[in-house]
């Protein structure tokens, strides 16, 4: 008679509904497959929540759900995204990212190996960014009620600087710094979709952004506002900030870097890279007198090495975004009504 368990959970071919039942299968899924990727004292409490002493009275709290398809794409995967996305949201408030929660919604039939790869990637991303994944939850939904794997993370960060970083601090004359070329994430994901069949070197820009932000703050740079560019792209982020701040923003199209593969794919599909998603880019609003210094600091970090000034907040108080294009004319940027779709016309 065999007394130890010779069948670790990951040899199950796929997730079954029972893995979400709270029973034995659930327990083994969590202890054998999920927890090993995130081992830390809080998780080891095996409680349903984590007690934290972040050591500060000002904490920042955020959440995002990640529903990307495919789960793995050139330059990243859903696990990385789920960590970086929330870490970046914390960083955009100037907080030091500290703790994450992780809630999984698994679709029945998901291969365990796929889940394992995504979790391994999450674990790596958490270690790389110095955050602890301290509490979590796992649900399983029936086949046809999910898309393999959805991940939600919520994050807690600690504000160690007194700087208030928010849209309302944007002031006339602030320069707008962009941390690198745009549109890579959205096009990398789209390029892997069925039917487009690009032979493409497109790679997502998916990356954590706390380092360059904290570099600015630690150097004592006054930062009025930060925003990571995600869904909706650079244009939508600018429009949102113009509206929140009640300011007119003016940007120079020529200053905005777009890589050749992104440009090629956008031209072919009739898409505008200004509206394509990013996962490792942000914009910073900095008073003009500190902009040179700020730029140098950003350029000194790997993830923002390509930073440049793309525009400024004007003295105008119409909350709108003016794009000056290369040929000397202007257009107003606005939100798209819905998602961008490939065009023939």
């Amino acid at each position, binding site marked *: *008679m*065999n*007394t130890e*368990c*010779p*069948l670790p959970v990951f040899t199950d*071919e*796929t*997730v*079954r*509904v*029972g893995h979400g039942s709270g*029973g*034995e*299968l659930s327990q*083994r899924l969590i202890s054998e497959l999920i927890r090993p990727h995130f081992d830390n004292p809080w998780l080891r409490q095996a409680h349903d929540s984590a007690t934290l002493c972040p050591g500060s009275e000002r904490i920042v709290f955020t959440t995002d759900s990640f529903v990307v398809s495919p789960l793995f794409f050139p330059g990243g995967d859903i696990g990385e995204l789920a960590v970086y996305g929330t870490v970046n949201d914390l960083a955009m408030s100037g907080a030091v990212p500290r703790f994450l929660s992780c809630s999984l919604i698994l679709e*029945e*039939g998901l291969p365990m190996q796929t889940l394992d790869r995504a979790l391994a990637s999450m674990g790596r991303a958490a270690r790389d960014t110095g955050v602890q994944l301290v509490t979590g939850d796992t649900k399983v939904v*029936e*086949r046809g009620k999910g898309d393999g794997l959805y991940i939600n993370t919520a994050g807690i960060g600690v504000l160690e600087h007194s700087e208030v970083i928010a849209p309302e601090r944007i002031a006339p004359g602030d320069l707008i710094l962009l941390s690198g070329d745009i549109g890579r994430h959205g096009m990398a994901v789209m390029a892997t979709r069925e039917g487009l069949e690009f032979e493409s070197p497109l790679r997502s820009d998916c990356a954590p952004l706390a380092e360059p932000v904290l570099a600015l703050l630690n150097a004592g740079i006054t930062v009025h506002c930060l925003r990571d560019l995600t869904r909706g792209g650079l244009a939508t982020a600018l429009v949102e900030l113009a509206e929140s701040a009640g300011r007119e923003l003016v940007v120079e199209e020529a200053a905005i870097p777009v890589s050749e593969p992104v440009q090629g794919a956008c031209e072919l599909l009739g898409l505008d890279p200004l509206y394509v998603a990013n996962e490792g880019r942000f914009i910073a609003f900095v008073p003009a007198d500190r902009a040179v210094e700020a730029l140098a600091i950003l350029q000194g970090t790997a993830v923002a090495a390509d930073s440049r000034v793309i525009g400024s907040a004007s003295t105008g108080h119409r909350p709108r975004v003016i794009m000056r294009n290369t040929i000397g004319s202007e257009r107003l940027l606005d939100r798209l009504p819905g998602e961008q779709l490939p065009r023939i016309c």
Partner: protein
Amino acid sequence: MKYLDEYRNPQAISKIADEIARTASRPWTIMEVCGGQTHAIVKFGLEQLLPDDLELVHGPGCPVCVTSLAVIDRALDLAARPEVIFCSFGDMLRVPGSSRDLLSVKATGGDVRAVYSPLQAVKIAEDNPGREVVFFAIGFETTAPANAMAACLARRRGLRNFSLLVSHFLVPPAIEAICTAPDCRVQGFLAAGHVCAIMGYRQYLPLAERFRIPIVVTGFEPLDILEGILLCVRQLEQGHYGVENQYVRTVQEAGNARARQMVEEVFDVDNQDWRGVGAIPDSGLRLRPAYSQFDARLRFPNETTPPADDSGCISGEIMQGRRKPAECPYFAGRCRPEHPLGAPMVSTEGACAAYYRYRKAEIVDEH
């Protein structure tokens, strides 16, 4: 709930248990044929109330446990077909076929639905005219009238997308087979009350006579089961071997005429393979030729050849009281409740699952 609560009354139960202890002068081995009775015995810990040397053997009376591997594999094939909605009672979903179970088929895309009643499957067929609805019609005599009604309604309503994968079992031939086995240890039977509610118990008279063994038609509540045991022990102690009816409030000698008529109309008797036990002549039901249009076996081409049951599972031995779960080489190793190799590991009350639960508590302790 009336007719449940009073049959779980602690004082009454303890009185009957005492009476059994008083009555039994030596070791006896009694088989409760029915899985429903086993369920109550495990859940209420009834064995703890019995004398040490009164042994209960958990019989083969669970349709989930005895449905053969070949039929389950057939079910898995059907359930995996894209055009099929496969309807099954819930307890069948986790029973392992050669390589997987219905829940796994569902997880990999099969449209498998748990139903409470065969009538739900009929309704699903009516609601989904573009799909093929296959109902896994398993059961003993108790379930046969319900499954027969499903076939009958499907015919009356002219359904063209409904069929049954029939796996039906009859109890008396199984009792006969158990008694005929050379190493049979069973000295008395508790017959299955709900089977007899349909069939009555006249069929048991020649069996009791031939094998000189008492047979007590018994209900499912703790008090029923203990009273059934008491009646059985009394016969054994007195050297009697009659058929007795403990479950009088539900079972009449002639059974339920209407229900039997419907079963007769739809099914006829056939040989049947019992998982772990083997083939028993005339121990099953099949659809009559008039219902062949509703026979899932005929409607869908056979995709696989029936497998040999080479899992090594010794469930048949266990269900006939010849071996204990711990003697199985796979017990608690390759075979565990979350990955059962055989049916007795599937439900909480399965002999292997119950043993496993106790063993686990011991082992954890040793850490």
